[in-house]
Every structure is written in C-alpha cells, then in structure tokens.
C-alpha cells in the first residue's frame, strides 16, 4: 500500500535550487531512509512535506489526498509527525507537558469544555496524562517527567522529541537525523526504538548520515545530492551505487 507519493517536488530559495523534481514513494509499514551529503536537500524535503515551506512545484499525495501547500497543523492532523535536526522541544515545559502538547490533535476537549471544566474534559485530560506517561516510559524517560525539557541531557532530549512526535499517534513519522551527535551506544538505543515504533504500525522516513545505521535499518533508501535524487534502491544497491559513492567521497582519482 502506497502511503505517501511525492511527485516532482521542487523548492527554490531565491536563486538557490534546494530541491529539483524529486519523486519519492513511501509504502505503508516501511522504514525509508533518505541519505545525502549535508546540504543535499533532505531537511528541505521534510519542511515542504510538513507545510513549513510551500514547494515551488510538485505535489504531495498522502493516503491519496493532495496535501500540497497545507499549513503545518493540517498536515499534522492528517497523521504526519516529525522531529527536528536541531532539537526543537518546548524548553520551558516539563517533559510530560511536551508529550501532552504532542497529543493536541487527539484531544476532544473544546474551549468551552476547558472553561467549564466538564467531566468529559477532565476525563480527556486524565487519559492524556496516562498516555503521556506511557510514551515517556516507552522512550525511557518516565523518571524525568517533571524536568524542564531544556534541562535534559542531549540524548534524552532526542528521545523526548521522539515521544512527543509519537504522542499524536502518527501514521507517518519523519525523523531528521535522530542519532546525530550520539555515540554508537546511544545511536543503537535509538535505532532499537525506531524498530519498536515500526512494530506499532507506524511508517518511518529517516534522514541519516550514519551509513552503518542506515544499512542496518532502512528497507529502501533514497539518495539526494544537491537537491536531485541520484539513486534509490535497497541498502545493498545503494551501497555500491557509483553515483552515491561519488557524492559522498568525491571523484575517484
């Protein structure tokens, strides 16, 4: 089953062409990896997909619906969640509150419900807290639930961002370099989590520079260079693709 189809996505920033006619198809239940040297357009691809930028050209179809140019909150409500390359937690909120904000789209409570503090609203809030604690336990941060996100260690912040993204019960999860800056042990922990997340029926798209991690995790890899898709295939195919090797290591000679 096809979950997401990107057709001819282009994005120009003034004269800079960040993405040029990129086609990507994501199958349901897949872990799709997106690689490319820094500046090759991977993060821009996430940003145009989640509505932070509008693509210059091209279309996104999510579960058959055209979501091109939707504002970020609509894309999120449709079931797409993401993390950021440079962690963007709500620093002055507790870990628990961060995950509660992540559940925003799932809450049934209304403005009136909040003001009247109806039974339904309190029930909703209680369930949200339970679920937030479950998610914190899932990423191993339950004992830190009352700490300000800004005070958590780097690796913990990365895991909290994962929990916050999962809180929306997404269909598609976009992870932007989830293991960046981690040592091999921490990275392995995160990859373990990603497997578990896929086990929950969530489709994952992953940007990652650590090829070793990528080879062991992704089922399908798309390689970008300077905004253009240069190759796609299984990890094995990508590993020996001369264009990919050239993009990463430069011309042989």
């Amino acid at each position: 089953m096809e979950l997401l189809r990107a057709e001819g996505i282009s994005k120009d920033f003034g004269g800079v062409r960040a993405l040029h006619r990129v086609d990507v198809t994501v199958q349901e239940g897949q872990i799709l990896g997106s690689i490319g040297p820094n500046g090759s357009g991977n993060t821009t691809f996430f940003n145009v997909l989640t509505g932070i930028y509008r693509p210059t050209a091209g279309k996104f179809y999510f579960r058959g619906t055209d979501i091109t140019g939707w504002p970020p909150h609509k894309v999120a409500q449709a079931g797409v969640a993401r993390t950021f390359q440079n962690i963007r937690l709500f620093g002055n909120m507790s870990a628990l509150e961060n995950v509660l904000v992540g559940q925003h789209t799932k809450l049934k409570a209304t403005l009136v419900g909040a003001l009247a503090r109806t039974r339904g609203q309190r029930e909703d809030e209680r369930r949200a807290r339970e679920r937030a604690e479950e998610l914190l336990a899932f990423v191993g941060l339950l004992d830190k639930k009352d700490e300000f996100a800004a005070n958590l260690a780097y690796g913990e912040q990365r895991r909290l961002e994962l929990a916050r993204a999962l809180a929306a019960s997404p269909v598609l999860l976009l992870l932007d370099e989830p293991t960046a800056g981690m040592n091999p042990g921490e990275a392995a922990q995160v990859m373990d989590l990603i497997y578990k997340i896929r086990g929950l029926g969530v489709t994952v798209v992953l940007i990652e520079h650590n090829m070793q991690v990528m080879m062991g995790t992704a089922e399908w890899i798309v390689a970008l260079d300077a905004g253009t898709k240069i190759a796609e295939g299984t990890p094995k195919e990508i590993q020996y693709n001369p264009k990919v090797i050239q993009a990463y290591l430069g011309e042989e000679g």
Partner: protein
Amino acid sequence: MMGRTTLWQFSRRFGLYVLGAALLLALPKMMPNEYVFRVVIAVIIDIPLALAQNLITGFTGMLTLGQAAFYGIGAYTSALLVLRAGLPWPVAFLAAGLVACLFGILLGFPCLRVGSDYLTLMTIGFGEIFHIVALNWMDLTRGPMGIPGVPPPQIGPIVFDTSFRMYYLYLAITLVCYLSMHRLTKSHVGRALIAIREDETAAATMGINVAYYKVLAFAFGTLWAGFSGSMLAHFLAFVGPMTFTLNESLFHMQMAILGGLGSLPGSVLGAAILVSLPQVFQPLYRYRMLLNGALMVMLMAWRPQGIMGTSAAARATRLDLRWVRDLVRGKKAKGAEAPQCLEAEGLPGRESE
C-alpha cells in the same frame, strides 16, 4: 499534580479557600474610610487588566502595548449604551466586553502577519488611533470633555451605588475573570499557548493552529479589558480620553511584569501593588514616575522574572532584562570577557536537585 490528593492536602487547600473567601467577604468591614475602600475597588478593576496582559504576553509571548484601547472601548461602549441608548447595565456590561473583543479579533488578524517587534508597534499604533478618535469624535465621545454622569451599575431593582455594594459586584466579576483565566491556562488551550510562546514552528507541527490560538489569546485578553473598562466607567461615573493612552498600556504591562509573567496570582499581586502604592505615597506624588522607575529597576536587579513569575516566560517573551541586574551589580555583560576561552567550575559531581 492531578490525581489523588491526600486528606491533609485537601483539607489544607479547602481551609485556604474558606479563609480567602472569609477575608474577601469581610474586607469591606475592615475599611478605615471611604478613600481606602475606593482604592481597593480600583485594584479589583485593574486585576483583569493585568491578567489579560499576562495571558497575551506572559503565556502566548506576544508583546502588545495597546490594551488601553480595548479598556477604553469597553468604557465608552458601556457608558454610551446606558446613557444614550438607555440600555440596562448588564446588557451594556456584556456589550462592552464583546465590542472590545471584536476589535481585538479584528486587530489580531493583521497582527498574525507580522513578527514580534512589528506586532508591538502595531498595537501601539492602534492605541494611538483609538486615543485620537476618542479625542476628536465630538458627536460620539464629546472629545476632551468626556462623558460625565455615568450611572452606577444596576441589576433589576438593585442599584450598586455605594462602595459597599459595588465591591461585591466587581469582586464577583473579577473572580469569574480569574477562574476563567486559571482554567484556560491549565487546559490544553493553555498548553497550546505556551507551546506557541516556546517555539511556533514546533507547535504548528504538533497540529496546533497557531493563528487560531493567537487570535484566541487576543480575543480573551481584549474581552476582559473591555469588561474592566465598563467597571471603570460606572465606578468613576465618567469616561474621558485621557485615561486611555500609551501610558495606561505600559501600566498594564508593568503590572504583569512586576507580578511575574506566566503567573496568574502574580498579576493579582502586581495590580494590588501598583494601584495602591501611588495612593500610599500620595505626598510624594510629584516623584511618582521616579519611584516607579526605581521600583522597576530594583525588580529587574533582584527578580527579573517578577515577584511570582518563572524566568521561562520572561525569557521567552524577550523581556528578560537580566542585563539590567548585571549592570546594577557592576558585572560585565555576557561575552564581554573575550580572552577567556574556557571556564570550568565545580566539575566533579552534579548539583543536587
């Protein structure tokens, strides 16, 4: 924390409520004279203003300086509806809030399109426009002469024409304000507002409709400024344009900052201190602004986050003026000591928490 509370916690909290309620109910009996009583009522009128500013600036992170306009819109609406249209007070009161709220929403939309500094300028601009309109629209507002003879609030046969009666009416209104602000900020709505303050882009990708919640904060804040305006008009029995200037907007901000951005009890305290202090120091009236300035500098020096606030809200709204503290204490600003590249202090062990 939600969930189960122990009997002790419950009884302590319940006891505090009872004590607070008894104090508020008995307060009129403790008044030494009418003058002090009027000051207390002025505090009650200003509390919603401080809370409204706090909601918009402290929680949502929008630095607006135009609240005086909405305060004024409420005051004029209420006075004119009672005097010219002959409507009963409850209708005029509700209309005051709703009209201010309507203008708030109308101003909120263009404000969404601009960055934070421009938002501040736009709201100052709106405040000035309101002031000039109030000053010059002779047919409606009687310009600088203002509107005298605004009658006291009246519900059916009950006329709230004494301080004693007005106190209970306004207290009830302000309590509703506090309760609604409390519930709003403690709900998913409040979380969304704080998330927007912390990181707008991240909030949007969590499915939060940033525009909606910003306008909501605006609407709620201006609604209560309007209600406050109505309370003021019927309290002073007069509405004039000179009350609603940029100075008044700055005063709202000052109340919110002094009490502490992001703290509702702080706003109550901020209003109480800043409204009553000039009355206490009446003999020093000429030096009022000087003392006010000194008070704010002292605050920034010792408690930049306000009396009850969290530094988080101050930081996030870029109202963190810790540099003033450093200036007062004679410290150099951060980054001034260029030659020093690395500093390590107390490395072994972590600070206990």
